[in-house]
Each structure stands twice: as C-alpha cells, then as structure tokens.
C-alpha cells in the first residue's frame, strides 16, 4: 500500500479518536483503569520513540552523534528551555559531533 494511503488512514483514525471522546458515553472513558492505560501508553510510546530515534540504525542498536543530541536535549530540558531551544540543542550537538568526526 502506498505511503499516501497510510497517511490518509492515520489522519482519519486520529480524527475519529478525538471525536470518540465527544461521543462515547462518559462512563466508558472515565473509568480509572481506562485513564491510567491511556496515560501509560503515552509515556511508553514517547520513551520508545526517543530510544528508537537516538540509538537505532536499521536492526541494530548503535551509539553515534545522536547520543550527544540526547544529552544536549536533556540538559536544555533541565534548564527549562522552551521546546524549540531543546530541538535546536539536539540538532547542534549532533551536527557539531559529526563535524568533529564522530558518528
């Protein structure tokens, strides 16, 4: 299936998910268990995506310039920098490490 189809299906599902919040009876989603699973899912997925983007290359785990990006972003976040500054720190760290000949 072409990438265009996946984009359109993913967009449709994202919209239906939002709409479902408005239409589903309150008691379904308000159960403590559902809220907790939704919260855990969000944290787990974002952690997994962070690791994938930082350490994965094809089907192996590698340590390269992206490790520097992760460290720089963590420092920026600890210093309460705004999101855009965090993203730029990550880019700058990776670019500089590559310029210096690593990863």
């Amino acid at each position, binding site marked *: *299936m072409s*990438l*265009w189809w*996946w*984009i*359109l299906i*993913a*967009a449709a*599902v*994202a*919209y239906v*998910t*939002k*709409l*479902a*919040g*408005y*239409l*589903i009876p*309150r008691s379904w989603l308000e159960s*403590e*268990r559902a809220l*907790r699973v*939704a919260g*855990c*899912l*969000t*944290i*787990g*997925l*974002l*952690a*997994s*995506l*962070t*690791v*994938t*983007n930082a350490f*994965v290359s*094809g*089907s*192996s*785990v590698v340590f390269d*310039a*992206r490790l520097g*990006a*992760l460290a720089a*972003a*963590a420092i920026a*976040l600890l210093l309460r920098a705004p*999101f*855009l500054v*965090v*993203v*730029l720190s*990550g*880019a700058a760290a*990776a*670019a500089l490490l*590559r310029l210096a000949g690593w990863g």
Partner: protein
Amino acid sequence: MTQSLGLSVATGLYGISFGALGVAAGLNLWQVIALSALMFTGGSQFAFIGVLAGGGGGGAAFGASALLGVRNAVYGMQINTLVRPGLTPLAAHVTIDESTALALSQDDPRERRLAFWATGVGIWSLWNLFTVVGAVLGEAMGDPKAWGLDGAAVAAFLGLLWPRLKGREPWALAVVAGLVTALAVPLVPAGVPILVAAVVSAAWGLWVPEPGGKNTPRVWKRGAA
C-alpha cells in the same frame, strides 16, 4: 487570549522542526502538509515520521501514530463535559494537548470556551504555516545528517516525553519501555519495537497498581510522594 496567542506562536514554531524532519524522513512537501492539516496532533505526527525515519513501513508508522493519539479521546471527553464548546465535528479536530490544557486552566465557563477555540484554531493555523516553512527549508538543506536533523528528532521526542515524567513511576515506565524497544530491535522488523513497547506500557497500566491509588501497597505510596 494573550496566553492562547503566545502558546500558538510557540507551538507553531515547532511546526518548523516537524516540516523539516518530515522531509528528512522521506516524505514529500504535500505529504508533510497533509499530516499537519488533517492529522493535527503533534505527538502522532512526530511518531509517524519517526517510524519512517527509523526504516519502518507505513503500517508500523500508522500503528504508532494511532496509539499515541489515544490520549486525545480522553481530552475530548474532558472538553465535552467541562467546556461544551459546540460545533463538535470542528471542536474534535482542534482537541489536542495545548487547547485542552489552556481551556481547563480557566475557571469561568465563557473563558474556557474562548481559550479552547482561540488556542485550537490559533495553533492549527500557525502549525500549518510553519510546517510549510520547515518542509521547504528541509528540502533546501540537502544532507539532513550534516545539519543534525536526526539529533533534532531525538530532542523533540525527549521534549514531548519530559513534562510527563513527574514522579518515580513514570520514569520507571519510560526506562522499561526504552529497554524493551532496544531489546526488540534486533529481533523484529523496523518500526515494530515501538508497538511492542506500546503493548508492554498498556499492560503496565492495567496491572501495575497506580502509586497513590486506592489499592496501592504502602511502599509504592511512599515511593511516589
């Protein structure tokens, strides 16, 4: 209103990073624009292009983005009961982290509705404008690695995760999800490790007692204080 505008400008600006990263992940200009205009939920959009950038296929990208969008259903429910914005089909489209957070932070019902619409529509407009800017810049950049765009993606995901890591339990879950991902990478096709981590996280939510919850053992409660 000022708050909504400020948040819209700030969030719109990360649209630049999304646009540039989308192109770096192999999408064309129109595909990047379609994600911002139609999907319009930053976490899922970044997830979609993040899986593609890691070598995963469209199906895995779809799975990750759909699962990350589940929280929007919870927001929809909160907005529907606490804000009652009207125009449900439109309101649903702009129900995202920022519009929900800002609406729920107001006390007066009228202010809530205003904050919801101003933030939702404001972010949608600027997010799409800056996505185009980012995608065009990304196309002009050439080798994305020389500019550290893959490092920008790492930072973006950590930045999305960070505000949710309040207390010991979310950290533990994040570490477990990260380890599961790394362990699964050599064993299953690209993109699938993220879905494995999703299953583990949902199971964690179902079976690990919530710190501070009713049925929580004492040790957990103390740990999460």
